[in-house]
């Protein structure tokens, strides 16, 4: 098992090289450059050239790649062309916000999706099953931004139940001991301040529902079909022939096997969330990685797009690795080979 993990981690190195090469070629294949967007369209050719030289854009592509990779291995992901903040600094500051949002969204998706899928499968063909099936299909069909707007309007503007922007209330949150930017953990464990924690949770609810609805629907659908498939397996019939109670059959035989595809889809959806938070973070003014990279794209800030995309892609690969490892853990056929 350990060998398997180490081998998968080693495989990350060529992936890293391939990814960075692809991203650099891709970004440079696009027309336009950051200097013209920083300096505006009516600037002198001299100033443009100076800017390009300053950013190293005048060098040939392979040299830029070499410089970039060299920096990468020294922990230097470059500096934003628009606000001169190192990419790594900005990322570290914003990443906790995206992690909290993604985890909350996945909690919504798994917490509701899995039980919903199981319940639908066990009542296959019933009214409940049909409603759940149609509901999850609608869930998949709702654009995130539309759902976000709807939630913000109904629960924020109209009912005034929940905040619709930011991660906390400035007047409540105590930053004297802060530093990690993991606000849920900080308020509960470090500050030990319940009102503060509840405030953070209240800010999290709407964005988490907006971001979690599609994974919820996907998880519910996969759970339903996985459970249905397992219910038809011969070993479930064997379990019934043994005279086991329904409870035990469900837990040890049905769910234990249905978990395999469910775990896979949960991992896949988590990987997609990291990049998919762009719209949610923009709507709810959430200071995370998504809204930052969106702004970088609008500003044509090459280096931020480049490094940010690279980090997200690596995270995606790492999440997939975690999924594969947990899959191997759940499935003895892989664990013992």
């Amino acid at each position, binding site marked *: 098992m350990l060998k398997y993990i180490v081998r998968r981690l080693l495989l990350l190195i060529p*992936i890293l090289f*391939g*990814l960075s090469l*692809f*991203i650099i070629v891709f*970004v440079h294949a*696009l*027309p*336009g450059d950051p200097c013209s967007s920083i300096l505006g369209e009516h600037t002198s050719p001299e100033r443009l050239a100076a800017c390009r030289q300053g950013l190293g854009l005048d060098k040939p592509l392979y040299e830029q790649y070499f410089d970039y990779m060299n920096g990468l291995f020294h922990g230097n992901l470059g500096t934003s062309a628009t606000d001169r903040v190192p990419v790594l600094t900005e990322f570290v500051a914003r990443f906790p916000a995206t992690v909290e949002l993604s985890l909350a969204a996945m909690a919504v998706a798994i917490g509701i999706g899995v039980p919903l899928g199981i319940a639908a499968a066990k009542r296959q063909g019933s009214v409940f099953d049909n409603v759940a*099936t*149609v509901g999850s*299909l*609608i869930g*998949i*069909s*709702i*654009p*995130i*931004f*539309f759902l976000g*707007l*709807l939630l913000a*309007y109904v629960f924020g*503007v109209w009912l005034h139940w929940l905040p619709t922007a930011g991660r906390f209330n400035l007047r409540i949150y105590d930053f004297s001991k802060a530093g990690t930017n993991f606000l849920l953990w900080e308020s509960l464990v470090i500050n030990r301040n319940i009102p503060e924690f509840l405030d953070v949770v209240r800010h999290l609810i709407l964005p988490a529902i907006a971001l979690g609805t599609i994974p919820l629907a996907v998880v519910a659908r996969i759970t339903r079909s996985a459970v249905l498939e397992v219910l038809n397996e011969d070993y479930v019939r064997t379990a019934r022939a043994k005279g086991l109670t329904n409870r035990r059959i469900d837990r040890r035989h049905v769910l234990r096997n249905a978990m395999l595809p469910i775990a896979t889809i949960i991992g896949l959806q988590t*990987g*997609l969330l*990291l*990049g*998919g938070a*762009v*719209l949610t973070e*923009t709507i709810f003014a959430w200071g995370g990685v*998504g809204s930052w*990279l*969106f702004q970088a*794209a*609008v500003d*044509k800030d090459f280096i931020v*797009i480049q490094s*940010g*995309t690279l980090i*997200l*892609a690596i995270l*995606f*690969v790492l999440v*997939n690795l975690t999924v594969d490892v947990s899959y191997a853990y759940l499935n003895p056929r892989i664990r013992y080979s």
Partner: protein
Amino acid sequence: MATGNVALRQVLEEPIKGSSLWRDAAHRLVRTPSAMVGLFLISLFVFVAVFAPFISPYDPTAGSIVNRFEPPSIQHLLGTDLQGRDILSRIFWGARASLWVSILSVTLGLLIGLFAGAISGFIGGWLDFWMMRIVDIMLSLPGLLLTITIVVFLGPGLNTIAFAIAIENVPIFARILRSSILGLKESDFTTAARSIGAKESRILINHIMPNALTPVIVAATLALATAIVDAAGLGFLGFGPQDPSTPEWGTMLTDTYRYLTSGAGFTAFFPGIAIILSVLGFNLLGDGLREALDPRLKR
């Protein structure tokens, strides 16, 4: 028949059930109510898009600021927007933008993706290896961010959006076609066809391609749904058609949403409902197709 015997007649008149994959699939599809609902929604969407000029009650670009933010009424069934334009007419015209982007992006993605997937699957070897590594890399990149980046650099507009979405679809189609070709190349019926001396080109055209394309058809249907959502998302972020006389659902949503508190009201959400219904249509059909085309799921 001389004997006039019931049982015997049953035996002798029993039709020989010859059924092709496609006719079977069509038969199953028609009997799936959800797929039929999907087909209905899609027909509605396409009809509205094609006949927008004839069925729109008003000019989608004409309106007077005096009439802005009117609630639904007999004159304006879905009310009016910020500039007093009829929302229903704008939704009808907006369907054209969505239809155009989804068809263009999926067609383009299919052309490139299927070509890549086919040569990868048939030629194999190092070419296959490297193409699949590129596919892996593309699939690990955050999709929407990639699309946004492409649109930012190429400039906003429907065609750019379609191109950017197509790029996102290429690796998906390529991988699906490749893996089904690989599976079929080794399948029993290909071996059977080969063993009776069928020509390779014949096996390819008659046996492998029709079967390899079934998962692609499903993926393409679902990709049409994703394209509508992504296009609207880009419009929502401000990258839609810059010419204000071209209505686009995502752009309409942002335009009106800003004024929710100053009078726009729930009419702001109508374009969103249009998006959901058309996306739901493609998702329902895609689901139905998946079940109809995969005989293993038949129960």
